């Protein structure tokens, strides 16, 4: 840990955060655009934002109604 400078730290963690953020934002956009969802929209919004990684996935799997 000591042999990592701060910029090295950032370069390690930023790609991970960017990926998760991209997934979260896509899920939120799909949620807002969807006409109907399975379950209340506000609840899905909370789940997508709070539950890291698995929240957006759960929304894509179970929240969308196919129409």
């Amino acid at each position: 840990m000591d042999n990592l400078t701060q910029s090295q730290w950032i370069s390690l963690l930023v790609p991970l955060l960017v990926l998760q953020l991209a997934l979260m934002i896509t899920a939120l956009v799909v949620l807002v655009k969807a006409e109907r969802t399975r379950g209340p929209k506000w609840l899905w919004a909370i789940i997508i934002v709070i539950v890291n990684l698995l929240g957006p996935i759960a929304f894509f799997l179970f929240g969308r109604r196919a129409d």
Partner: protein
Amino acid sequence: MSLSLKMKMKMKMSTGMQKWLVLFRKEWLEIVRSYRILWLPIAFAVLGASQPITSFFMPDILASAGNLPEGTVISIPAPTPPEALAGALSQFGAIGLLLVALSSMGAVSGERTSGTSAMILVKPVPFASFITAKWAALVLLASLSLAAGYGAAWYYTETLFGSVSWRDALPAVLLFALWMSFVGTLTLLFSALLRSAAAAAAAALATAAALSLSASSLPFEQSWNPGRLSALAAGRLVASAASPAGGQTAGDVWLTVAVTAIAMLAALFASARAVRRRPADA
């Protein structure tokens, strides 16, 4: 509906291969539209990257846990680079397989209830093409995701721990890809056999877990068992992770691979039969 119309027009004058490509394109389009093309690779990449990072910081995490008695000395040997990469594979073997099964659990049963399968199968489409197009799309998606995840794990392992030879890393990931495709095929089979999507995912995962458990815990030699594949994959990276049955000869590994391939073929055959018997839910 426009999609099905397009298909109808294309199928009027097409050979078997062209028909199959149309079906495959429809499956792939669905993967894109359901955002599986996005979330499955990202999930694998995040899983693959966080495993080396977590094991790199494990000593610090434990040290800051704070509920250890005074003067406790924790010495965890830092994992070797191949061990770190094998750790990522074990993540894929648990959460990764769960996600793969969940992403394809409704492959057939969902189309039966929505009426899509009825719409497709009234056209002169062989049942085998219907199933194999689904299977190919599923395996392609799973392989892309595994590649993304393994690539991320490899990159982070190289940066944090040191290099792993591709001679070890490549066979390991190929064996694991076969195991993952096998579980995907099981999901497709159970999705064709059972009405409920959740039951299909559960049945596929339970079968995979049972095979894998019996391979690792039963005392006799099981060269035929596909459940050995994930242990074989890890064994390519870390010698001690190989199954307790002892030294693996190359012929042994090929036998497992061949049995898995045959089992996958049989599962596809059974799925096509199940679709022929019940093409749609009334």
